[in-house]
């Protein structure tokens, strides 16, 4: 009797990996992180492996570190494994060569993902594993959740038997994150698959002083070559070892696999060859076509390396006349992708031996999880049937540049798909739609004989992310590894009314299907509240429309704003997938399982929500159609913006509205370069409440602007005359500052459709109404339709007002800096993000001259994830120029920017001096000697450069043109190196340290969330003692690295710890000081994060507590002060006055430890208290010590003689 599990591919693979290993070295990278997280969680629960011990989980500082640790563990006799993807896998490469060269048995599980090229992508393809072909590792590909589990075990058995390391890979997201019902591999099976004799043989080969050997020698030309050839027999026998493992597995479980699995007509003439999850879709399509008499088949490659040509030929039907090989990777410049060429070579060799040579064509599909559907499979077969098929092709895109793409019939559906039940749910990231759907799949998978599949599509935003859940149910195993297609969904749910404006969600609905809408509108008014296109679709398709006010029900049930249980109940009540009563009982059982004895109250609240949901669910009568109408083309709602650039209209907004798949190749920039300032066109309208300015209470302090994570509240002073055409509700009052001429007006304006409703501005407001302390100078108000329209108009007017003369504004005060236009706006960061205010502030102060190197992480995702680009330009078209290289090399990347800027400035200076007689000696002197430390100096230099360019334009000789081409570099660049603590403390620390050790003028901003935020909260070396984080489930036992103090030890580095929520004036001062310092500057910025387990409306409070408790002391170290003979250390906070317990207990990351490991929590609390006191004492001692002259700073390029400047 089989046991069934409902889980995703990552968990399925991790289960086997955990059981079969003793040491697991991990490092987070999407989409493989979950495998390591599962292993860590099981280890924290003391779950044993096959040999009764708990595997040791060790997080390293990078994949390179994990690879090294693995190599050491394996060569010393342990069974070890890891999980990775993409760039992480590339960091394994050097060790993979070593591990294979030393014939080391181990399995590396890879959720295969695109390698960053013109852009980073977290989605699935085989470009990463293809980079491993030369390493000598075996490459084994599974194509489904079931196979991810089964092959993980078979790989372990084969590696022990065959001694080659195995890279077991499956498609990132499509398999790693697909939830499916699978047959479990039981412990007995694992036991039977793993041969302890081979395990002992592995241990016997371990390095041991009891029988010492030498490994890792250095070899010379005389023997290296022969040594490489010595391993050939192992590669010849490994396919046999793999097949033997498959055969043994088949005997034990009944699930039989071959190295090359062929399915289709025995006399197939046209055969598709591919590997990975696409094989499932191909199987489904082949079954459909073969049932209609077509002689087609699919050959799925399981063991890709070592390549076994004989097994391939044996699997390929003899009648095959045409072969299409599909690769999920791109090797630019090659005359075919890797699998295609392997197949071609094998067939050519066989043809030379007398076998008939079929025609072989090769195509690319599915890069970065691009959809691969039955229609596309059919298109490939159709191409094969042509007299002259394209030898090289792509499928899944419209290529109007190289014209390689195949056309496909978007209406083609397989019989298997038509026999399934489909449901699509549109939700907001944080509204629990995805988790509720995972729960629903489990309910159906575990309580019925039905098979179930769930796949979840996320957008790139963190605040207000849109999720689409695609669920399938059916009596047979589900092979549809593609999204639910148009007109196929029996059930569509819209969990957020606002989505009706943005997405064509009813395109999925099948005629006669059910549409469930969460809307606050009363049932009798719902119909007329729907967009016209939606009404027409409902009528044309004959849909049933059901509505519920889920937020209203949640409030009534005491559930706050959590609607997932309510919407899940509605789904079961009206979808008909399960009998209603059975489904409701199952939901309640799931609730009890979740909350049970932990909280009777929450169980009761959820039960009440379930009951209320059923009471408040209404079917809406659909009015008869007034006339027969064709389905309307779905058109997104207007954004309220009148001037939309062509690029935004044609590229950005279609991507935003979910139609990026339809963009042709020609629409894409050639080299991955995109324009700035497109985030402002999204108008996501995700806030339920927005701040409203009370102009009468306001003292114009600017704090609300400073703390806004999304630049959605702004300040402007302007001449009174400009207010003549203001909209009627536009608020403005006399500017209070004496810095401005009499009559100057002041306005604080909210961007209503860009605000995320985080409340941080309200929390920051220091003003209280004298008669009612709860009222501030900004107050949250529900974002009604009327308020939205009025403030939209006001904001448009506000944006049209010119920025006040920047030279007349005090940049060094909070109210003054608030008046500077942000050149970073409306990013996709979380509501209340603690990082983004720092970036926005930097762009306000220096944005028109910034070059930004951004490490991969949260800041690169909200900073540069398409389609929105939050970095923007000022009225002159200037703004931050931004790029992301990698996670690990950001400091070096930024240093390169500095070197280029310095070198080109130097070149321009030399040219200018050489042409002094032609362009004017005074101008050249001024250009070369300009003091550009502040904005006034830079503006003056811009004017000089303009004059220079004018004069050069009149000169015709080549040197003039050359100088003109580099003249802009005469204007000082402000180079910023930005990243999170994962980069700065861990993977990039070596580079960071090196850049700090050099004298170059770079500004390094470390956004310290004390955890890997982007990948989901894994421990970094910035994680404080006692904090619970992923990979530190029992609380981090060691202290946080003191990055600032380490950097200050160089003496020539400007260093500061800042926390704007605790002391905003210090933050502002630090940014000015750091930027003006002509050497390396390091700002370590405390950045509260949702990963701390605090709602981000308390972001500022938490910063305050962090400083008051001594967790985050504020200080500055300015070498310039040291140069004057004074002490460069300056403490900017008082001694800890708040017990660190109070701070730690206010955040779930600490507080949960006292629930799970109370004794440890107490121990860590005591240690944290002591560390805070000692750290403050140490800082105080440094700040009060007699000054000693530090190493003199030098920003000059050591290669550039001083006299040149």
């Amino acid at each position, binding site marked *: 009797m089989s046991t069934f599990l409902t889980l995703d591919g990552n968990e399925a693979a991790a289960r086997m990996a955990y059981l079969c290993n003793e040491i697991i070295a991990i490092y987070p990278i999407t989409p493989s992180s979950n495998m390591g997280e599962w292993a860590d969680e099981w280890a924290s629960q003391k779950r044993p492996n096959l040999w009764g011990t708990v595997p040791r989980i060790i997080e390293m500082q990078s994949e390179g570190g994990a690879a090294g640790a693995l190599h050491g563990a394996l060569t010393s006799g342990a069974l070890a494994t890891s999980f990775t993807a993409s760039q992480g896998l590339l960091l394994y490469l050097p060790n993979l060569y070593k591990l294979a060269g030393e014939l080391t048995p181990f399995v590396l599980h890879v959720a295969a993902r695109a390698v960053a090229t013109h852009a980073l992508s977290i989605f699935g393809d085989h470009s990463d594993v293809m980079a491993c072909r030369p390493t000598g590792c075996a490459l084994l590909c599974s194509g489904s959740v079931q196979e991810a589990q089964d092959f993980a075990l078979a790989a372990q058995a084969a590696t022990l038997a065959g001694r080659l390391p195995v890279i077991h890979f499956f498609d990132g997201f499509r398999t790693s994150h697909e939830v499916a019902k699978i047959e479990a591999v039981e412990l007995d099976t694992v036991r039977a698959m793993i041969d302890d004799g081979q395990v002992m043989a592995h241990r016997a080969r371990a390095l041991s002083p009891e029988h010492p050997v030498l490994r890792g020698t250095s070899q010379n030309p005389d023997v290296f070559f022969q040594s490489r050839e010595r391993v050939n027999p192992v590669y010849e026998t490994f396919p046999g070892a793999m097949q033997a493992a498959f055969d043994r597995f088949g005997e034990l479980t009944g699930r039989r696999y071959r190295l090359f699995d062929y399915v289709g007509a025995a006399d197939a003439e046209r055969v598709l060859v591919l590997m990975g999850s696409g094989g499932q879709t191909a199987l489904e399509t082949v079954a459909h076509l073969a049932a209609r008499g077509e002689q087609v088949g699919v050959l799925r490659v399981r063991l890709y390396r070592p390549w076994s040509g004989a097994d391939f030929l044996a699997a390929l039907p003899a009648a095959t006349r045409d072969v299409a090989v599909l690769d999920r990777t791109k090797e630019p410049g090659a005359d075919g992708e890797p699998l295609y060429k392997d197949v071609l070579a094998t067939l050519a060799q066989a043809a030379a031996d007398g076998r008939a040579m079929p025609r072989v064509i090769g195509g690319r599909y599915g890069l970065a999880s691009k959809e691969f559907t039955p229609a596309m499979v059919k298109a490939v077969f159709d191409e094969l049937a042509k007299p002259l098929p394209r030898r090289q092709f792509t499928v899944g895109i419209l290529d109007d540049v190289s014209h390689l793409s195949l056309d496909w019939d978007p209406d083609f559906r397989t019989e298997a798909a038509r026999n399934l039940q489909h449901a699509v749910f549109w939700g907001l990231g944080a509204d629990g739609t995805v*988790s509720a759907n995972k729960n629903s799949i489990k309910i159906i998978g575990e309580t019925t004989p039905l098979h179930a599949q769930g796949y979840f599509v996320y957008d790139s935003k963190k605040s207000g*992310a849109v999720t689409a859940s695609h669920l399938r149910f059916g009596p047979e195993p589900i092979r549809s590894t593609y999204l639910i297609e148009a007109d196929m969904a029996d059930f569509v749910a819209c969990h957020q009314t606002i989505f009706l404006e943005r997405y064509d969600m009813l395109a999925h609905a099948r005629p006669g299907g059910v549409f469930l809408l969460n809307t606050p509108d009363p049932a009798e008014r719902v119909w007329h509240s729907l967009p016209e296109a939606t009404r027409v679709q409902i009528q044309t398709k004959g849909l049933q429309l059901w509505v519920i006010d889920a937020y209203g029900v949640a409030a009534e049930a005491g559930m706050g704003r959590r609607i997932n249980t309510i919407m899940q109940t509605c789904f079961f009540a009206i979808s008909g997938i399960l009998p209603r009563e059975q489904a409701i009982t199952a939901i309640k059982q799931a609730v009890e399982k979740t909350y049970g004895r932990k909280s009777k109250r929450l169980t009761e609240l959820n039960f009440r929500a379930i009951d209320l949901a059923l009471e408040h669910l209404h079917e809406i009568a659909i009015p008869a159609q007034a006339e027969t109408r064709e389905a309307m083309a779905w058109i997104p709602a207007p954004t309220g913006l009148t001037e939309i650039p062509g690029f935004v209209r044609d590229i950005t907004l279609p991507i935003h509205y979910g139609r990026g798949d339809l963009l042709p190749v020609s629409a894409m920039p050639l080299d991955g370069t995109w324009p700035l300032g497109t985030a402002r066109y999204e108008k996501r309208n995700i806030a339920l409440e927005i701040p409203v300015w009370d102009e009468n209470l306001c003292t114009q302090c600017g704090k609300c602007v400073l703390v806004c994570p999304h630049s959605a509240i702004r300040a402007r002073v302007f001449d009174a005359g400009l207010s003549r055409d203001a909209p009627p509700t536009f608020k403005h009052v006399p500017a209070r500052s004496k810095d401005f001429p009499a009559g100057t007006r002041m306005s604080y304006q909210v961007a209503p459709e860009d605000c995320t409703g985080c409340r941080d501005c309200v929390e920051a407001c220091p003003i209280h109404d004298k008669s009612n302390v709860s009222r501030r100078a900004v107050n949250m108000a529900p974002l009604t339709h009327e308020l939205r329209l009025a403030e939209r108009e006001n904001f448009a007017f506000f944006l049209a007002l010119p920025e006040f003369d920047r030279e007349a504004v005090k940049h060094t005060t909070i109210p003054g800096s608030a008046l500077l236009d942000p050149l970073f706006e409306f990013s996709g960061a979380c509501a209340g993000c603690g990082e983004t205010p720092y970036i926005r502030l930097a762009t306000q102060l220096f944005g028109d001259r910034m070059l930004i190197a951004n490490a991969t992480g949260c800041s690169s995702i909200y900073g540069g994830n398409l389609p929105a680009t939050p970095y923007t330009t000022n009225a002159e078209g200037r703004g931050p120029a931004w790029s992301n290289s990698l996670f690990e090399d950001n400091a070096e990347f930024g240093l390169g920017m500095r070197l280029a800027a310095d070198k080109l400035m130097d070149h321009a200076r030399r040219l200018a001096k050489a042409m002094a007689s032609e362009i004017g000696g005074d101008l050249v002197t001024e250009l070369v000697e300009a003091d550009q430390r502040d904005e006034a100096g830079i503006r003056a230099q811009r004017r000089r450069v303009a004059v220079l360019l004018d004069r050069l334009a009149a000169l015709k000789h080549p040197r003039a043109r050359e100088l003109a081409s580099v003249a802009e570099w005469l204007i000082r660049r402000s180079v910023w190196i930005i990243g999170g603590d994962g980069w700065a403390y861990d993977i990039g620390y070596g580079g960071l340290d090196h850049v700090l050790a050099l004298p170059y003028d770079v500004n390094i901003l470390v956004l310290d969330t004390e955890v890997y935020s982007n990948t989901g909260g894994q421990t970094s070396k910035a994680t404080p003692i006692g904090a619970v984080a992923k990979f530190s489930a029992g609380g981090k036992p060691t202290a946080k690295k003191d990055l600032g103090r380490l950097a200050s030890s160089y003496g020539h580095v400007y260093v500061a710890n800042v926390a704007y929520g605790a002391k905003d004036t210090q933050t502002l001062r630090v940014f000015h000081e750091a930027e003006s310092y002509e050497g390396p500057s390091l700002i370590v910025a405390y950045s509260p994060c949702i990963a701390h387990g605090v709602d981000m409306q308390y972001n500022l409070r938490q910063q305050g507590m962090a400083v008051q408790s001594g967790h985050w002391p504020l200080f500055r170290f300015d070498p310039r002060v040291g140069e004057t003979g004074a002490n460069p250390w300056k403490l900017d906070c008082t001694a800890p006055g708040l017990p660190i317990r109070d701070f730690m207990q206010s955040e779930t990351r600490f507080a949960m430890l006292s629930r*799970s490991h109370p004794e440890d929590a107490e121990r860590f609390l005591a240690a944290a208290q002591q560390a805070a006191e000692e750290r403050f004492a140490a800082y105080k001692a440094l700040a009060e010590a007699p000054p000693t002259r530090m190493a003199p700073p030098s920003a000059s390029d050591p290669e550039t003689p001083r006299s040149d400047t």
Partner: protein
Amino acid sequence: MTDLSTDYLGLGLRNPLVPSASPLSRHLDSALRLEDAGAAALVMYSLFEEELDAEAAMADRFLVNGHLGHGEADGFLPGHGDFTSGLDRYLEQLRRLKERLEIPVVASLNGVSPSGWVELGKELQQAGADALELNVYHVAADGDQPAETVETRYLGLLTALRQTVSLPIVMKLSPYFSSLPHFVRQLEQAGARGVALFNRFFQPDIDLESLRVENRLTLSRSDEALLRITWIAILHGRTRLTLAATGGVHGPQEAIKLLLAGADVVHMASCLLQHGPQRLTDILRGLERWMMEKEYDSVAQLKGSMSQQHLPDPTVLARANYLHVLDSYSFASGVRC
């Protein structure tokens, strides 16, 4: 030898001094020290309904539903498989105390809603509690709620708990009942075995700098014992319920006065938190010394000897008392004006 024994909820105690709910019972060491210092029983720290709810809400918000719905991060904190609830920890501590202490252990529930208390009571009984103290912490701030509704809430909780728990139950009350003796009678009818007078509410304070309200719990002062003396004296002899005095006991004097007024046991917490378990020994010795000096043979003899019923002028504890206090500021009859 003076007989200090007393009866509390049907439990025979060696003396009337019982530490009330405080953090001292969170740690086995301090509980053992209290027993060594002479405590006759121990009321455990309160299992706060709000604390359990807040803990569950935290887990729900950040562990169960902590996702952003972003492709790279399902959630931000590790799985919560080993996350134990406050209830689990409380039960574990109760078991540990019962294993090591010889004196009775009273579990204390502090809450306001019926949610989960009945099941909770059963679990506490199974874990070995000798009695339950039910502290219905309810600030009657709702203008639509008549006093009767407030009383009904207490009675309803008690009745529900009574049906599933065979342990003696003591109701810890606030001083804000309009007709305390009548209410106590109703509690008796509903199955309570005792009342503890009175609980002390958290008193919100205002921070003049931030203009924010801050919750504070200040330690009791000895003058707070006077309110307890009054009502214990009034209730003694009018109810069969055990009377526990709680609040304001800092030295032997308050303890003795409360016993004279009619308390069966005298609770203390603030003085123990301030001075440690040794203070309990000091009070016990002071009580013994006083009784010996006054030639009392037993606490039973002492208890209630100055209750309202036994006072020569019972009105001194009623409104007339107010007049007498005023009178005390008038000139003595022998003084010439």
